[in-house]
């Protein structure tokens, strides 16, 4: 009797374990509940922004009766793996943050993302978003996701250092070079740089500022990294290194703190950097300011400005698909973007939204004019495997500046492999 009971117990345990395993491995999602009001589960890799999303709940509950239940991940790689695995379960999220570029295309190709073409058409008709931004969210003629935020990559500078050295905000590349020379001769390092992760921005700036089509060609594989024009640009970067214009690449001092204490006078960063500088105790407009970096090639008609935009997406098979899309639709409105800009202290993609920080408001208005050409940031414009190698090689170049060709050849070898796989 005991023996039989033990056998049954073991069999039940084994069956339970098998069921758990099968449940864990089974794919497919739950059916869409169809609800358009309630609490929406939201996942993001921007854990630090969780209080800002919570702050928005007041506005969204009043307008569309939806509140976000936010789960923030602080490790981007861990977050990406979680989202990808969630598509295999019934827990795919009703709303989640993602990346544009090849990462977005990858999900769309697998049919995992809900289409948002109608939301975009309405927003464009209302004048809430630009056609330029719609392009970033278009795959095979249809739109997917909505922009969570937008950031322009500009030059921040320490106003006191500029005043002390009698430097005016540069409006041409020559004036920028002259400012760097003035600073260097006064014993001040002109620019911040690092050899980890954010290694791409100066390359991006000089390539797009020289020829936007050349920059575009790198992201489509039509231009090689070993192209003579790219080599010339890298050599210009090398000259600047040899002139001592960049900070120590191995320093781990917080970049905002470094700008505050005058370790360097300028830093090329996204317009979300205001938050870090405010956090370091600098006052916007008094201690620091920003300017759009002039075009490298004076013959260009428009000044290129890199834009970074992170999407808010809805999973196609999510139980909260309708709810996620309802929130996405509200998110595009001026009311939502005003609330977001207020909560986050960032520029808004909707030109009809009110931006409280005058510096960011002015930047948004400036960049929206016909004199500027907005292009996708290198981080999103470059396919991930090429990007990984390029970030490493730019980091290696920054750490040990020298003949740029070997670095470029390594990136091009990865690019050749990637584009061959796409054929």
């Amino acid at each position: 009797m005991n023996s039989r009971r033990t056998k049954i117990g073991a069999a039940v345990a084994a069956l339970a374990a098998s069921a758990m395993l099968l449940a864990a491995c089974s794919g497919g999602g739950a059916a869409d509940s169809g609800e358009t009001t309630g609490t929406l589960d939201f996942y993001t890799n921007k854990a630090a922004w969780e209080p800002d999303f919570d702050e928005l709940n007041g506005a969204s509950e009043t307008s569309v009766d939806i509140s976000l239940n936010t789960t923030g991940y602080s490790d981007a790689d861990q977050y990406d793996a979680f989202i990808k695995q969630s598509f295999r379960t019934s827990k795919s999220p009703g709303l989640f943050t993602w990346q544009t570029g090849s990462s977005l295309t990858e999900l769309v190709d697998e049919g995992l993302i809900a289409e948002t073409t109608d939301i975009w058409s309405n927003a464009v008709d209302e004048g809430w978003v630009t056609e330029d931004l719609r392009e970033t969210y278009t795959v095979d003629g249809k739109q997917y996701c909505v922009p969570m935020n937008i950031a322009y990559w500009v030059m921040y500078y320490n106003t006191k250092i500029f005043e002390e050295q009698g430097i005016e905000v540069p409006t041409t590349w020559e004036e920028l070079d002259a400012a760097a020379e003035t600073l260097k001769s006064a014993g001040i390092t002109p620019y911040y740089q690092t050899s980890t992760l954010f290694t791409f921005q100066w390359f991006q700036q000089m390539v797009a500022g020289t020829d936007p089509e050349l920059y575009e060609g790198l992201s489509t594989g039509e231009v090689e990294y070993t192209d003579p024009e790219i080599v010339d640009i890298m050599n210009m970067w090398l000259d600047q290194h040899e002139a001592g214009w960049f900070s120590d690449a191995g320093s781990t001092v917080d970049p905002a703190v470094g700008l505050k204490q005058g370790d360097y006078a300028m830093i090329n960063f996204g317009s979300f950097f205001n938050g870090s500088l405010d956090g370091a105790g600098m006052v916007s407009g008094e201690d620091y300011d920003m300017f759009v970096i002039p075009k490298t090639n004076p013959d260009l008609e428009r000044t290129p400005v890199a834009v970074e935009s992170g999407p808010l997406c809805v999973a196609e098979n999510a139980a909260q698909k309708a709810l996620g899309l309802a929130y996405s639709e509200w998110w595009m409105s001026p009311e939502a973007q005003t609330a977001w800009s207020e909560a986050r202290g960032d520029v808004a993609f909707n030109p009809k939204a009110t931006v409280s920080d005058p510096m960011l408001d002015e930047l948004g208005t400036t960049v929206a004019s016909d004199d500027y050409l907005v292009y996708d940031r290198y981080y999103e414009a470059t396919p991930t495997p090429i990007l990984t190698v390029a970030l490493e090689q730019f980091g290696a170049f920054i750490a040990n500046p020298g003949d740029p060709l070997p670095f470029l050849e390594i990136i091009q070898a990865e690019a050749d492999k990637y584009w061959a796989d796409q054929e």
Partner: protein
Amino acid sequence: MASRGSQYQWSARGFIAPGVILVAVLLYLPLLWTTFLSFTEYNGLGDPDWIGFGNFAEMFEDPGFIVSLLNTLLWVVGTLLIPVGIGLALALLTWNLPGGVWLRVPFLIPYALSGIGVGLIWSFILSSNGALDQALGAFGIADTPRWLVDAPLNTVVMIIAAAWQGVGVNALLFTIGLNSIPKEPLEAARVDGATGGRLFTSILWPMLRPLTAVVVGLSIVASLKTFDIVLGMTKGGPGGASETLALTMYKETFVNSDYGLGSAIAVFLTIVTMIAAVLYLRQQLSKKHEF
């Protein structure tokens, strides 16, 4: 009717079953799945495409992988020479010394820290213009090496950081080994006039062999899977110059979403670790103690 012994066996199986199922589900199934993925091209979405040994070929053709492999070998050699060597020296110097246990305590405390924590502390010390550079600057030494930027110096200083964490536990293990040596041969050797180096080479070292084999074996395995401290200090950079195999595996899998290549590196690392551990331990533990 089942015998008493058979009933006992069935009861035992019932108790063991949950453990066996857990190990199978959490260890062996992922191992099999990883091995399968290593023969596929897979980006984490949809279904994997079978490509045979393509990932393994790509792995060995990649110069970055070779750098990673060499760095890992440097870690193996470095962690044997420094934390194991210093641990043994510390154990010998404090053995039988009045208050010796208290001398070992400061070396043992860092073992309680996580690898990432150790990495953060040491990157604060060793980064350019960091604590060490500033301290050296106070003594008028301005032209300091770029500790975490130049290769292979960055790997060497990371091994030293890992040694800072690992010396204490190695010393503790060697002390346990020294304390377990019977008193009779020691006293006989001393009566014969063996002291210092002679006592160590003829008596202590041979009698410590089983424990040394375990300490060195554990050290080899730990250094082959070095990951967290490198992630915390250099992220494998600049330009992958300080990457280890475990970090390359992580990067390919979770940064590049190349689950196939990442799995191939994981399989390679597993095989190397198992071969190293089995060969070394079999060779060491099968030796008879001769003294």
